[in-house]
């Protein structure tokens, strides 16, 4: 479980995050949604410590991340996995080497055990045949799957995904969503996903935080979201007319 309390963050007199609090549950896909520029990525980067918050606290299973020293954070980070928007794979390494990298750096496993773990992760993301290819030789969707495999290779307790579906076609996006959701449930990890993709929200949104202009505007789950009265959230969700029609059907059905 990850809990954030009263998070503030600003850049050069511009307040990007204002008093955000939320509990992200274990074994659920927790979504942070909002328009582009709403502060989602800043919030996610603040939670993982890539950005320092100006105020507030972040707890990882009751361990205060904001008060940890460098060594404590470094240790905790070995319990994290992150999938970046562009994949952030190492260009000079093959798919297999990318996935094995965290094991080589931190694991005490033997070479055989490491290979077994890499093979398991490759199998999990259905990329066994691409193991010897370089990132530049595979598609965007495959790169995202490699990034997911690399993020879970150390059996993390916490998984973070920043716009995992950006730049992908709807079918591939759904594959990624299902993959992240199944990993979250199977491994019982705390997953936080940044997205503005409403399809993802409706497919895997167990626990949703909507932020607008750096402020927390709404929280709930995918069942509640279509029936919301929140004006800003309605503008965000019903920008896609398909969801307006589903909402109307639901209300009429009631």
């Amino acid at each position, binding site marked *: 479980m990850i809990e954030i309390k009263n998070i503030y963050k600003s850049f050069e007199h511009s307040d990007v995050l204002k008093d955000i609090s939320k509990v992200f549950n274990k074994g659920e896909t927790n979504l942070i949604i909002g328009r582009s520029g709403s502060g989602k990525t800043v919030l996610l980067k603040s939670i*993982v410590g890539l950005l320092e918050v100006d105020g507030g606290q972040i707890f990882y299973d009751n361990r205060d991340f904001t008060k940890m020293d460098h060594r404590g954070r*470094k*240790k905790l*980070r070995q319990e994290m996995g992150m999938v*970046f928007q562009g994949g*952030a794979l190492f260009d000079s390494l093959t798919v297999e080497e990318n996935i094995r990298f965290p094991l080589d750096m*931190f694991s005490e496993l033997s070479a055989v055990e490491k290979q077994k773990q890499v093979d398991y992760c490759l199998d999990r993301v259905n990329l066994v045949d691409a193991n010897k290819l370089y990132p530049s030789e595979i598609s965007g969707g495959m790169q995202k799957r490699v990034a997911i495999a690399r993020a879970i290779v*150390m059996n993390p307790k916490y998984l973070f995904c920043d716009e995992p579906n950006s730049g992908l076609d709807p079918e591939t996006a759904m594959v990624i969503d299902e993959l992240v959701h199944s990993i979250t449930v199977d491994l019982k990890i705390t997953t936080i996903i940044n997205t503005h993709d409403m399809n993802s929200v409706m497919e895997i949104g167990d626990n949703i935080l909507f932020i607008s202009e750096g402020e927390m505007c709404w929280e709930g789950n995918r069942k509640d979201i279509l029936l919301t009265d929140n004006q800003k959230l309605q503008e965000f969700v019903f920008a896609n007319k398909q969801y307006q029609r589903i909402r109307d059907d639901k209300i009429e059905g009631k």
Partner: protein
Amino acid sequence: MDIFYQTGRYFALLLKVFSRPERHRVYALQTFNEIDNLGVKSVGIVAIISVFMGGIMTLQVAYNMTNPLLPNTLIGLGNRDSLILEFSSTIMGLIMAGKIGSNITSEIGSMKVTEQIDSLEIMGVNSASYLILPKIIAVVMIFPLLYILSVFFGIVGGLIVGPAVGAVTVTDYLNGIQYAFTPYYVTFSLIKCLVFGFLIASVSAFFGYTVEGGAFDVGTASTRAVVNTNILILVWDLILTQLLL
């Protein structure tokens, strides 16, 4: 004021670079890769430049020594000492700042703007140390060897060009390069190479590691890295020459 701010950031980065590696074996492997990538792959360009440099230097010395009272052996001596003292260390340093330095800046800068460095940090890896320390060790180790190769190829260049155009005979040239040799000049230049190697790797890495933005900014950072490294090489050349000669 920006120069003080940037200098402070540079030393702060160096503190991060020279911290205890997570896994020595991985760092050692990375260092060998960098020796190959940055050092061994520079041998060709060093050889070509040095041959021409030595040849041109031999002609320049020959054309400036038309006085019949001066022995022709001085042509070889002039070429040798110019190469040992300045050309194979400082000029090669300036050239390597362009070749190796821009390579380092663009590689690390590209990793920065594509979030690969953030990715390392999230794993718990000290990204500065992992990316920069092997490069510094590799360049500091390889640059003195490139210097020795450069002196050798420069002397060979003079030996080819001088007699070929009739500026000096082979015998006079060979006598000249053996005449009044001062071993300390080599020691002095090797010390310079260690300093230049450190500057090339660390300053270039600093500009790459601190880049913000996209591809355009990586290009700008590469240019700034080369310009600043060149200036620092010349400043340190002056300081070391005053201190050590």
